[in-house]
């Protein structure tokens, strides 16, 4: 058991560090003096920087070489991330595309799709977004209603609404889950598509959150035309293709370390400034409980990495790290605001945004409750809840729900 690099990893780390040393002046400045302010400029600069990272071999580390990646393992990916963080420069802009959607296309896409899309994705020339969730299909993802109908020429027409879409406002493409056969039970009859975000009929609208910021978007599809080649993984196989994406999402979360910027020292700093609070037994007890759990997540990430190195795929329990992070950060926000008082809730406070943002995050990526169901069943082997929607055609299911309401 050790946390040290192997000799090969030492070399890899040195290379990454050297490259960053040479190139970090080209990185966009996002905070502090000289920071870019204009949103469009920031995006443009981050796209260019992603391209540079890809050229330097610091993006798509685990992608096969034939698609522009390094063909290396997850540990090398983490080493690059650590070195990027150490250099104090931004990482890639399109973490969703490179981390989850690209690997899905690599796994299920046609040769044409791979050669057309992967290169521009990796280099930040074309940003991607994930069009899975819908207003009535959040945690129950297989309930998507966006309808794709095939014409006689083999092409498709899509109509529906997606929601909680990150990066949609500047994405070139989206990977979209749609229902192609409503007469099948809900997990069948789904198909995955590649959608150009500038196609006629696609409308993107920012979705404001509690904080007042539009962290996510709604995406409306009004009779959007796609050709036959837009299908990823075959017609009717959309659920299996989506599961691949979700598996890569878990890997991303599992390796997230203390992740999301909610780290222990930052919270401690929020409290250490108040000499009275620093010595208050109640504040200390709460802080100690919270940061102990957040520290654990870092080492859970290392355990996940060890498993990945051994070729094991992380199971749904990787999602527990997210539960720990989100709930820990929520408690930390509460504690800090109790210490600082209402000023912690001021718009200018570094804490107000976090306090506003987290309650929504608890619901993002599958609610905590559904995650606990999945883990209880798949990891602990507990029996499932009775499922009333099994084997029933989706169309029939919807009318039943309507009647029950």
């Amino acid at each position: 058991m050790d946390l040290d690099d192997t000799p090969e990893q030492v070399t890899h780390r040195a290379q990454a560090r050297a490259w960053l040393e040479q190139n970090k002046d080209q990185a966009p400045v996002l905070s502090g003096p000289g920071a870019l302010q204009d949103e469009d400029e920031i995006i443009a600069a981050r796209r260019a920087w992603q391209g540079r990272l890809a050229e330097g071999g610091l993006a798509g580390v685990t992608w096969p070489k034939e698609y522009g990646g390094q063909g290396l393992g997850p540990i090398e990916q983490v080493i690059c991330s650590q070195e990027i963080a150490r250099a104090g420069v931004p990482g890639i802009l399109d973490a969703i595309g490179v981390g989850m959607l690209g690997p899905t296309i690599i796994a299920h896409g046609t040769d044409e799709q791979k050669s057309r899309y992967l290169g521009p994705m990796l280099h930040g020339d074309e940003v991607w977004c994930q069009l899975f969730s819908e207003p009535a299909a959040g945690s129950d993802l297989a309930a998507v209603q966006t309808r794709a109908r095939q014409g006689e020429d083999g092409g498709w027409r899509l109509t529906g609404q997606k929601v909680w879409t990150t990066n949609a406002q500047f994405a070139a493409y989206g990977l979209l889950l749609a229902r192609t056969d409503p007469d099948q039970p809900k997990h069948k009859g789904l198909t995955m598509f590649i959608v150009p975000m500038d196609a006629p009929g696609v409308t993107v609208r920012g979705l404001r959150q509690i904080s007042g910021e539009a962290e996510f978007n709604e995406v409306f599809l009004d009779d959007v035309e796609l050709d036959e080649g837009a299908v990823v993984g075959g017609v009717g196989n959309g659920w299996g293709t989506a599961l691949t994406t979700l598996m890569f999402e878990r890997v991303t979360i599992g390796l997230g370390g203390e992740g999301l910027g909610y780290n222990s020292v930052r919270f401690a700093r929020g409290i250490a400034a108040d000499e009275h609070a620093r010595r208050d037994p109640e504040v200390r007890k709460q802080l100690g409980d919270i940061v102990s759990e957040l520290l654990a997540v870092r080492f859970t990430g290392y355990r996940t990495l060890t498993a990945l190195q051994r070729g094991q795929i992380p199971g749904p329990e990787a999602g527990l790290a997210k539960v720990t992070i989100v709930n820990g950060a929520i408690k930390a926000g509460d504690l800090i605001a109790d210490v600082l008082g209402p000023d912690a809730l001021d718009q200018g406070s570094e804490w107000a945004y976090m306090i506003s943002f987290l309650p929504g995050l608890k619901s993002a990526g599958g609610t905590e409750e559904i995650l606990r169901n999945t883990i209880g069943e798949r990891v602990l082997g507990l029996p499932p809840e009775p499922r009333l929607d099994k084997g029933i055609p989706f169309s029939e299911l919807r009318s039943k729900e309507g009647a029950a309401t």
Partner: protein
Amino acid sequence: MNLALSDEQEFLREAARGTLSRVKTLEAAREALDGDSSALPDLWPTAREAGWPGLLIDEAHGGAGLDAFDAMLVLGECGRVLASVPLLGHLPATAILADAPRVADYLPALASGERRAAYLPSQPPTDVDQRWTADPASGLERSPLPTGARPDANGEVKLSGSYAFVPDAPGADALVGVAVIDGEPAGVVIMADADGVQVEPVRRYDATCSLAHVTLKDAAATVLDAPVESLAGAWHLAQALIAAQSIGSVETALEMSVAYAKERHTFGRPIGSYQAVKHSLTEVLRQLENGKSLLYYAGWARNGAPGEFPLAANSARSVAGRALDYAARTMISVHGGIGATWEHDAPLYFRRAQLSRRLLGGTSGASDRVAGELLAQAAA
């Protein structure tokens, strides 16, 4: 033994609900948050029409001569719809003034609402801290009260010091609280427009809560002849009122969450049929019912057992504060992603919960006092 509302109380509550239902308070709260502070309707005329400003002033001075519980019923209705009626500041102030014969002439104007007062939160000593303190502008350590030297024959004095996060202070005519005069705590009233008085409005997170930092620099004040029990009582009354307001908000949060849990389906079932949702909502109900019971306790104790009023009011605040916190979070999580969007009402209740748990000594300050009261009883 009768813990039910009288017909008059039922009427008072229904009237308040009816009156407030005619104002789009939630929409206004959202617009105000978005920068349009003129969006918040001025509800003081409404309050005057309903007779709320004089609730705690006796009939001889133009008030309704009602008691804390009646005031709590009105605050509860305000809390239900996040209505911005400046009673949390006004009512405890009138409770002190009503006990100070020296300023009895001023009461009718306050009772009618022609003049509006705001209470300067002044926390009485606890079993382990012998000081009177004010809420601090920042940090965990409580602030000393403003001080003044020996008053003149008319009870006039110059005060210096500050009170932070004073509810409803912006626009108030008179500020009423406790100061340390010649080394002893005493009630004081300060005219907001007097020299040396600075009322700096501050907005934090929930636009419906009108707050100000009040700073005094040799500001003219009148020392009140209200007994010290009355000064302490105003603090506890403020705890009971904010508790009632919070419990009102919990009621709405629960109702909206239950309604959504019946409608929204996932995996082929209404989400309210799942234990995770059902048990959370039952927990909101449990906390709500506990809070309501303690509102009865506080409402009864203020006159029925004054010695227990600190315990009653602060336990109500403690339970109600935590109930609102839990109810607002549950409201968001039951609604899923939609509950965290700007257009939804859940975030408004969440903002209210976040802010109000940190006002007037904080929910945790109320718990601390409950412990102190019990520990003192236990030691006796």
